[in-house]
């Protein structure tokens, strides 16, 4: 199974802005790599370049020991010769072909004899549980079924590299959950290298073995999902990954309020200096008696929002609004004064990059 290597990849459209800027990315053999980012960050362009549907302006792409693109050496392999699988966001099923013919198409192109074609198509449809729709046409299928057929069409040719472009975004919440488990299973069964594009961080965190966060055409961080969550490399990743988003408190040149309190806490432990901004995840902000060494401040409860399994509390701490998410019932009512504390502070320097942990809970873990 192949490793995908993108080196020095840049893409500009018609002399305008860069869609992708100088991207170096290694997708290890057998990885389930999620390209995560807001819309317009260049993730779909990157995927399409791997597929060969777009051509980089500079750089090279290799899969295993095969050079697919090299602008410098003038090497290019067209998409039809790359032998990859791609599932489009719109599924792009061919309306004039039956489900079976859709799935068999790739095998037909590879000149697989009819009986084998038939059995492999059936096996692929079996795998995604739509064997009963075999002789229907795409327009007669539900959205979920179409999505599965698109997946089967890709799986039937048994490609070593699977590319998925937001394949779950057109499904309803329940189906999406189901398909996530399904994709994870398919990844484990096939052992293929998967590159998956999404703007939904939950998708990325639940399925991927590696997550690459992109913004404005640049790679922000490449890490396993939980690592990405626990140690965001910069302010963008910190705010983008995690829901509700991490609160970032800028200290500023004349520290006041919450910033001053956090800075004082930090200086007390590490001496002079200190970061330019602190990050607090809502899940890490607790109510009640603080343990020794934790930062804490009194806070006013502004609203309590129960959501079944969890409670979100809107707090006002030193004139700054903070959210806390907890999984145990909240007794406080709006207007009450409580103590909030955390022992997991994220520190960011003036350049926006993470300051490596010195003593927080994550560092001890």
């Amino acid at each position, binding site marked *: 199974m192949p490793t995908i290597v993108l080196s020095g990849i840049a893409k500009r459209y*018609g002399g305008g802005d860069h869609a992708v800027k100088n991207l170096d990315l290694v997708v290890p053999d057998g990885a389930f790599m999620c390209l995560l980012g807001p819309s317009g960050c260049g993730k779909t362009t990157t995927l399409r370049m791997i*597929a060969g*549907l777009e*051509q980089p302006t500079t750089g090279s792409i290799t899969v295993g020991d095969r050079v697919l*693109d*090299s*602008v*410098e*050496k*003038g*090497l*290019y392999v*067209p*998409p*039809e*010769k*790359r*032998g*990859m*699988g*791609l599932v*489009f966001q*719109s599924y*792009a*099923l*061919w*309306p*004039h072909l039956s489900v079976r013919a859709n799935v068999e*198409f*790739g095998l037909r*192109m*590879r000149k697989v004899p009819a009986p084998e074609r038939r059995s492999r198509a059936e096996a692929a449809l079996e795998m995604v549980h739509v064997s009963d729709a075999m002789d229907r046409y795409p327009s007669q299928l539900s959205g979920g079924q179409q999505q599965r057929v698109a997946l089967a*069409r890709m799986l039937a*040719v048994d490609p070593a590299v699977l590319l998925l472009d937001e394949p779950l975004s057109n499904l309803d919440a329940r189906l999406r959950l189901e398909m996530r488990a399904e994709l994870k299973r398919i990844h484990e069964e096939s052992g293929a290298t998967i590159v998956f594009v999404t703007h939904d961080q939950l998708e990325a965190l639940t399925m991927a073995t590696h997550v690459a966060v992109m913004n404005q055409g640049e790679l922000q961080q490449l890490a396993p999902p939980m690592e990405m969550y626990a140690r965001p490399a910069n302010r963008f990743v910190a705010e983008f990954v995690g829901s509700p988003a991490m609160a970032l408190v800028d200290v500023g040149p004349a520290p006041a309020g919450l910033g001053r309190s956090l800075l004082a806490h930090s200086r007390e432990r590490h001496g002079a200096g200190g970061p330019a901004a602190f990050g607090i995840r809502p899940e890490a902000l607790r109510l009640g008696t603080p343990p020794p060494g934790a930062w804490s401040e009194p806070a006013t409860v502004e609203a309590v929002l129960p959501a079944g399994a969890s409670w979100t509390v809107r707090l006002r701490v030193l004139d700054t609004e903070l959210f806390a998410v907890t999984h145990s019932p909240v007794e406080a009512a709006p207007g009450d004064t409580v103590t909030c504390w955390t022992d997991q502070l994220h520190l960011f320097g003036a350049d926006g990059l993470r300051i490596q942990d010195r003593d927080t809970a994550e560092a001890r873990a």
Partner: protein
Amino acid sequence: MLYRLRVLRHDPTAALGFILVVVLAYMVVAPLVAVLSDAFRLQYGDQAHAGQQPGEWTGYYLWRVFRSQVSDLLFWEPLLNTLVISLGTVVFALVVGGGMAWMVTRTNVPGRTWLAGALVVPYMLPSWTFSLAWLTLFKNDRAGGQAGVLQAQGIATPDWLAYGPLPIVITLGLHYYPFVFLLVGNALRRIDAQLEDSARILGAPRRVVIRRIVAPLMLPALSSAVLLVVGRVLGTFGTPYVLGLPADYRVLSTGLYQSIRDRSTGVASVLTAVIVLIGVLIVLTDARLLREHRRFVTVGGKGAMDRLSDLRGWRWPAFALGGVVFVASVLVPILTLLLSSLTRTPMDLSTFTLSYWFAESLPGAVGFPHGVFRGAELWTAAWNSLRIVGIASLICAVAGLLIGYVVVRGSAPRVAAFLRQVSFLPYLIPGIAFAAASLSLFAVARGPVPALYGTTFLLILVMAVTHLPYSSRSGIAAMTQLGREPEEAAQIAGASWWQRMRRIVFPIQKGALVTGIVLPFISGLKELSIVIMLTTTGTELLTTLSIGLVDYGYTQLANAVVLVIALVSFTMTYLTQRLTKSSLASGLGG
């Protein structure tokens, strides 16, 4: 660089785009350039008059057309006549078409569905059907050939009734009122009755509602209909030829035809340029007005169409009025043509005969000495029509789809813009002017391209190009709707370009391809203005055959041939509408 070349080698879209650009530039832009250059270069044979050598730049033709002592005859009079006829036809079409549209969409006249269909039929007939019927009824002894029905009854028809502006306006009006009927009818249907209700609730009386609310909302449809009719009348040839020429009543299109027949190429080129200019101005004005009116696009709500004016006691008289329009614009012309082709003395049933259709020999008719179904002429012409129009439509449809493909898939925005605009250019140009322009490019050998005048090839080319705007528009629409993903999916699956085209793109676009063939085919079959200058004895089409018979004065035979065309084109239009559920209105491009 090497990388770009490698990529291009694997992607024929770029090459295809390049080929299309070259072909379109040659087929659409080059004729216009050629005709302009002909207008300013001295032609052979005019040296003595102009005092210059052939090929030199000259203002002689401009002078001759606009300022000389013959310019009244060559240009100003035809221009005035064209304006008079356009104006008359527009008024006629507005009154009849607009009135009928209001009656059918906004009143409770009985038989509304039937009227809505029946009143469109005149547009399915070739436009000069009406003029032949008119001649059959009102012709006097001014021109040769058989006298009209009234004349035969001993009632002398004055010239102003038999020829000239009045009959031209009436017959063109009868052909073009469906335009207004469809466009205005659609607009009326889309106006939300709630808009009117709101005004009435605020205390506006009915008159005021019509003046202040309905009329302004109708303005875009009305202006579009008016300009469309003017544009068509400008380029129409058959009717002014049949009804105008015997009385020396010339319009721009027939004047252009005569200059070409007289081989005054320079003058013809200037006239062509003028017609092109007027045509372009009309369409640009229309586009501009539409843009200005876009701010009042009304979104049809639920309340639309649920309120009809109650005509009370006038319901049946109103229906009768609609019936009269149908009878006058469809039944009378068709029956006149049919009966006249079946009688020796027109419409006198005691002289009933089938010989004009079937006789092996017709005494007296030297140029066409047998019934229309006998001998080879009709069949050859029909075969030519089918073959030439069929191939042209096929080319048109395929080219339209390929243009759509390159516009949607191609990575060069400038190529896409060029293809989009140039393929639409012939829409701005009246057909007769475009044919004249093509003639000035292809009549003589230029470089490696031999002289094409008189060849089937030229007819096919010109016919395909003039119908290209419709098919390229629909091709671009179809390809945009399809998007690039289905093809990319096939590419990823390992299909080469040919396989993608053959197995994915064209099969999916089958429907678009069929309509792309059928619509140009129907309109091409009744086309006269474009082909009249390009056909020669070997390449006679049904339409030119019938005009030839008119020239000979063989009324019955000409009528019989026109009847055949009318029947074929009506049947095909009707069937297509039934099969594809498309409506004529959408094909009007209004």
